[in-house]
């Protein structure tokens, strides 16, 4: 099995595929795994707690556990979000990489997939930019939907030198598009394609002692914005609708994830430095976070609820590739399902479609339904907030009671389903 894209979704798919018994080859264009996960860090907030526990019960809690163990702050609250864990972005990637190596996943870094060979609606193999070619029985694409540079330029503020490092490692390619399946795009509120990544990172030492102390202690810092800087319209442009609340436009909200996460798409540096405590502020990610951020959601593949790409027989996808999902937890959950179903496909077994009585099953089905209508393409789907978290509450899917979640999984006989070796 070949998995293209070593972000959270690809790593998660590697794990469940490996557990199911496949020979897994993971390909990543940069020199590190986790992609945007290297500048993320927010876990278990709001409905993500539920999803994390469901995933643990389903037998694929490996990455959730690593994130929990790597947390700088646990069970904290910040505007609109409860019981969040913040993992340390500085230590997370090596931990995940070593875990994957331990369980026997073949990791191939600095390998950029550029094209495919297709026959009879099946992908035969993948061409890489270095001239090599790899064949496999089944493929999973978890290349995300961020950038690359040409897209950030046309639909955003240009390349802002984010963690994906296209100028160094080359742009991501949509494998499903190369295989002849048209990509779908998400839209911003004002009917423009794509959305800005929702946060950036500042260097810890560049902030004032007072801010650093507060962040060390509580994990959160809120700085009210001078009136002239308040821009409510900017909220509409971002990917992360769960952080598009009024508080985020009226204040600068910082979270301690190892670096200091600034919960806004971008903020001009000269303006930022006029705010008390931020006089010496400096961006770590994107490097040009004063100018803009990466553009996402321009290459979603049409998938079924089993996460198989429509139009091809042996390509599955997960993470942002599979829908307008936001977040690490969403990527890990969809990745786990895709990895497992890819092996089921190889064996000729019916794929697993998670029931809608599970938050994970419901979000996948719901996002798929909504993708078909224009209004739905302007929303994002995350357990952590916005429309979908409201829905979770309405349907009584949201809970932090582990007993209830355990029952939920047992009721549909899916306990440890991702832990079973099926080959």
């Amino acid at each position, binding site marked *: 099995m070949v998995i293209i894209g070593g972000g959270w979704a690809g790593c998660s798919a590697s794990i469940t595929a490996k557990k199911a018994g496949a020979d897994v080859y993971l390909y990543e264009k940069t020199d590190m795994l986790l992609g945007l996960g290297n500048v993320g860090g927010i876990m278990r907030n709001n409905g993500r707690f539920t999803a994390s526990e469901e995933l643990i019960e389903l037998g694929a809690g490996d990455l959730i556990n690593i994130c929990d163990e790597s947390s700088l702050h646990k069970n904290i609250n910040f505007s609109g979000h409860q019981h969040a864990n913040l993992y340390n972005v500085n230590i997370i990637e090596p931990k995940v990489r070593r875990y994957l190596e331990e369980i026997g996943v073949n990791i191939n870094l600095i390998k950029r997939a550029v094209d495919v060979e297709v026959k009879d609606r099946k992908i035969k193999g993948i061409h890489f930019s270095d*001239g090599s070619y790899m064949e496999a029985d089944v493929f999973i694409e978890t290349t995300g939907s961020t950038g690359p540079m040409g897209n950030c330029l046309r639909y955003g503020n240009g390349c802002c030198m984010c963690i994906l490092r296209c*100028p160094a490692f*080359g*742009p991501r390619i949509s494998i499903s598009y190369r295989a002849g399946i048209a990509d779908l795009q998400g839209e911003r509120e004002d009917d423009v394609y794509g959305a800005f990544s929702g946060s950036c990172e500042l260097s810890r030492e560049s902030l004032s002692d007072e801010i650093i102390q507060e962040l060390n202690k509580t994990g959160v810092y809120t700085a009210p914005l001078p009136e002239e800087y308040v821009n409510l319209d900017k909220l509409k442009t971002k990917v992360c609708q769960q952080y598009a609340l009024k508080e985020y436009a009226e204040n600068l909200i910082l979270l301690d994830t190892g670096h200091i996460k600034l919960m806004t798409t971008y903020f001009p540096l000269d303006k930022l430095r006029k705010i008390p405590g931020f006089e010496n502020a400096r961006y770590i990610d994107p490097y040009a976070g004063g100018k803009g951020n990466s553009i996402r959601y321009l290459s979603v593949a049409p998938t079924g609820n089993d996460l198989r790409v429509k139009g091809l027989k042996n390509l599955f996808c997960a993470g942002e590739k599979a829908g307008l999902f936001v977040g690490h937890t969403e990527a890990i959950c969809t990745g786990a399902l895709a990895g497992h179903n890819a092996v089921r496909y190889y064996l000729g077994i019916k794929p697993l479609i998670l029931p809608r009585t599970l938050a994970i099953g419901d979000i996948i089905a719901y996002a798929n339904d909504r993708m078909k209508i224009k209004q739905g393409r302007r929303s994002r789907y995350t357990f952590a907030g916005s429309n979908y978290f409201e829905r979770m509450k309405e349907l009584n899917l949201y809970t932090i009671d582990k007993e209830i979640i355990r029952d939920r999984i047992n009721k549909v006989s899916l306990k440890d389903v991702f832990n079973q070796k099926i080959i």
Partner: protein
Amino acid sequence: MDYEYIDCIDAGTRFCPCSLAETGECILCSCLRGEKFCDCINWKGVCIYGEFINNGQKSKNGRESYKCLIENKISRENVFYLKVSVPHSLAGELTYVGSFVFIRNEKFDNYYDTPISILEVNTEEDYIELGIELRGTKTKAIDLSEKELIIRGPYWNGIFGIKKINSLKEKRALIITNGIGIIPAIPLIKKLTENGNHIILISDTSNLDLSYVKSKIKNYNIKEIYLNIFSNGNLTEEFVNILNKYKEDTDLIHVSAQDIIILRISDLISDKSFTCCNNAKMCCGEGGCGACSARFSGHKVKKLCKLQIEPKYLFRERRLI
């Protein structure tokens, strides 16, 4: 697995983006080919679309022409050699394998621009050496030049397979040339020698007096074999025997000859790593005029003045009429 990677020789250089970008015909960039989204299969290290936008949605300036002094001329039967003074910046850009310039007699108009490979370049004394076979009106016009020449450059797409050549280190190369094709092979021999490669040269000097070139080859410690390669539309038996003798122990075979010879040899060495010279007719050298266009099945048109392709794709499914 057969897969045709394509490359544009000018991508990322000071001539990129070229005028093809302004008309939505960029060879590499999907955004500059009228597509809505970035599909950058052929990333060359620079975002060409970005360069285009940052340049005010305009292409960069193309090559310039320079009036250059002829320092020396050696005339032989059917061929002549020129040593020409060039601006220092131009000399520095002609040091690459596959470099060439367009030259013409200043008394004739620009349709007389003739693409000629660089035989040798000296960046300290700022001159280039060229070897020109007398064939028809353009080359004879150049021969008539007395003091000065118009030189337009630099151009770099004189050889297909440049990546393979530049990355060959401490291996074995077999270079086959016919007639004037020996000229562009000289910078190739220099580069391969610098990279520690062992070289065998098989050359058919035809009816040209290439003694001047042969004297330059003596500077490199290579094995030279001179014989008749081609006769009556086919490779000679003598040559085929020698080719078979040496091809097994070779890591790269380069052919610097007419297309028919390149094609015949490629049939015999299909499993070998193979590069060749670019024989396309050229006029502007920058992708606009279409003189270099070659047509392929599937309505594909390739501009050979800019496109770097693997030689094996040069003749495959090519339309001749």
